[in-house]
């Protein structure tokens, strides 16, 4: 096997190795640590973009149908664990790499001060996300979920303080319970069909006896509920706004893609398990209704809150609700616009969370409202853990270049983010919502689906309006009531990532035609699970000698 054949495993190995090496480095080696973290993410970005290229039609000679299979240790599916790169995986990998790189550069400004091992945890978070998007095995999906969650538990608590510890406790408890649901679902599915390989499921499900089929469906539902917890769907999302609002700005931005892991899992497992192509989800019409309620409750939350970061957290819920409700319609042509919306919403919320870290500094003193306690008063209690609270409001002077016209930059970025979140032209938030709604209203197989589509369209437009009202109110307080504000000193490394993410969004809007073509190809291959299944199951390594050498290189895939 050539080096290129090993590309799919790099997004998992590289951050794992980087995290391990950085744990062993002493606190004083900040330069080395930074370069390892940056290097790891740059490699991942390069790998992700290469994989993305390999799945497109432009490189059809590399992989048939744009699906690459990497059997870990050379064991063929369904007995070994496989990594599968298809268009959706490659797209999500690229998204993770772009967002994580921006977040890392941003955090170098002053957020990664010594204390907890920020860089190692962050690399593990990225590794968990990459692994969840790559794996073709239900149980390793669970393992990667746990890795990213365990890293996120540590990151939420970073900086400590009463608010973070209390919200972190709720966050951990909810997600642990969800993990048990995940395990029970996976165990039920294994107990009935006898396989954990996602590609192997469909064929075996069809052969089940009716009583076993009922058990399998119960397992799928339980698994679906676990995914909905991760996706931030109502009524399982009460952990989300708090956890995002208390964690530091770059960490919340790094979490921007976490709820989308849940949406991805619903989409992936759902399309692989549906026998008739119209019912594209495991949860069926329930998904539509919970998504709709999520959408509405998220926008009520946006109206109710006064705190910008919490408001952005609610907008994450709104975007999750929109995606789940659209997928729940069960209309195949809706998938491509949903994926476009997913990409823009991840980039937008990441940029917005990063921005809140800077707008927080325009305050003259620390805020006391909305359950966000200041961290400084809590510090003495915490020295026993060897943790120092970084100053979230940046009163200490940072070294390095500051950018001019800080307030103008903040204002401009804020306007861009608002336009993106609410879906106003000319930014891609509008393109995404517009294509989504036009597809929803055009493709109407039945009267029931047409009504559901209209309800969804009204809800999306209404929540957009609510979003504008809520964000405008906060924007006026941030930028127009200048007497209570001071102009913060903005670091180039903080400003550049936000500008970069917004720029990526602009490029997406400008290049929306080719992007949509790619996404339609993605959706088509998703709704054609037979290709995926045959590609994965026929992925026997070329020769015996090759299989042996690769298993020696990489070790077993089982944890």
């Amino acid at each position, binding site marked *: 096997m050539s080096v290129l054949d090993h590309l799919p495993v790099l997004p998992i190995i590289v951050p794992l190795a980087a995290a391990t090496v950085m744990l062993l480095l002493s606190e004083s080696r900040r330069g080395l640590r930074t370069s390892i973290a940056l290097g790891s993410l740059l490699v991942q970005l390069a790998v992700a973009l290469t994989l993305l290229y390999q799945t497109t039609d432009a490189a059809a000679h590399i992989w048939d149908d744009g699906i690459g299979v990497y059997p870990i240790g050379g064991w063929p599916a369904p007995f070994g664990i496989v990594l599968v790169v298809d268009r959706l995986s490659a797209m999500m990998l690229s998204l993770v790499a772009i967002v994580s790189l921006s977040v890392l550069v941003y955090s170098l400004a002053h957020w990664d001060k010594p204390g907890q091992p920020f860089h190692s945890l962050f690399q593990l978070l990225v590794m968990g996300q990459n692994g969840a998007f790559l794996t073709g095995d239900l149980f390793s999906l669970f393992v990667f979920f746990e890795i990213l969650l365990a890293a996120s538990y540590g990151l939420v608590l970073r900086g400590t303080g009463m608010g973070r*510890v209390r919200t972190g406790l709720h966050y951990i408890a909810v997600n642990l319970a969800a993990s048990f649901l995940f395990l029970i679902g996976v165990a039920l599915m294994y107990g009935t069909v006898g396989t954990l390989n996602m590609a192997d499921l469909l064929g075996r499900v069809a052969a089940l006896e009716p009583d076993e089929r009922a058990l399998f469906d119960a397992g799928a539902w339980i698994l679906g509920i676990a995914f909905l917890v991760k996706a931030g769907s109502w009524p399982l999302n009460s952990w989300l706004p708090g956890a995002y609002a208390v964690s530091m700005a770059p960490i919340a931005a790094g979490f921007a893609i976490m709820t989308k892991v849940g949406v991805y899992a619903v989409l992936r497992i759902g399309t692989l398990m549906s026998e008739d192509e119209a019912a594209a989800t495991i949860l069926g019409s329930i998904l539509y209704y919970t998504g709709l309620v999520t959408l509405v409750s998220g926008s009520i939350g946006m109206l109710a809150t006064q705190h910008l970061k919490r408001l952005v957290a609610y907008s994450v819920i709104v975007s999750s609700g929109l995606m789940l409700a659209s997928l729940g319609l069960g209309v195949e042509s809706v998938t491509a616009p949903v994926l476009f919306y997913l990409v823009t919403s991840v980039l937008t919320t990441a940029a917005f969370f990063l921005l809140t870290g800077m707008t927080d500094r325009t305050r003259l003193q620390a805020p006391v409202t909305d359950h966000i306690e200041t961290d400084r008063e809590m510090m003495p209690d915490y020295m026993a853990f060897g943790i120092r609270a970084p100053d979230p409001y940046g009163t200490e002077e940072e070294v390095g270049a500051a950018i001019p016209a800080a307030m103008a930059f903040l204002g401009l970025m804020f306007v861009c983010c608002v336009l993106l979140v609410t879906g106003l032209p000319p930014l891609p938030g509008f393109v995404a919502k517009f294509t989504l709604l036009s597809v929803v209203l055009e493709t109407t197989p039945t009267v029931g689906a047409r009504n559901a589509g209209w309800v969804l369209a009204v809800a999306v437009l209404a929540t957009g309006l609510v979003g504008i009202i809520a964000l405008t109110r906060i924007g006026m307080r941030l930028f127009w009531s200048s007497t209570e504000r001071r102009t913060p000193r903005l670091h180039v490394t903080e400003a550049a990532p936000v500008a970069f993410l917004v720029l990526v969004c602009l490029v997406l809007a400008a290049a929306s035609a080719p992007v949509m073509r790619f996404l339609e190809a993605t959706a088509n291959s998703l709704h054609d699970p037979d290709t995926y299944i045959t590609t994965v199951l026929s992925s026997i390594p070329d020769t015996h000698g090759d299989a042996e050498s690769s298993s020696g290189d990489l070790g077993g895939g089982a944890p």
Partner: protein
Amino acid sequence: MELVYALAVGILVSAGVWLLLRPRTFQVIMGLSLLSYATNLFIFGMGRLHMQRPPILNDAAPDPSLYTDPVPQALVLTAIVIGFATTALFLVVLLALRGLSGTDHVDGREPEQ
């Protein structure tokens, strides 16, 4: 045997869920532990319950029906490790909350009387 096993899992789950919904952090962590035991037993049970059957193949008896399914046992091992690690982390957060707030209520403050 199946009935006793199922009853044990059921009792563990119901006790775990009840404790998880209690307001004290110690009760919550006990609930999570009981839930994780129940989950592990459940996964194990999904490999079907057999007596006197080894999970690892050897050359002496190549007939697969003489063996029990090894996959759930491997899954349980992984689940135990992960559950143990996250429970340990939860314990640290629990102690931190106790240290910061001076109370063992999950919200960090006692409800108003």
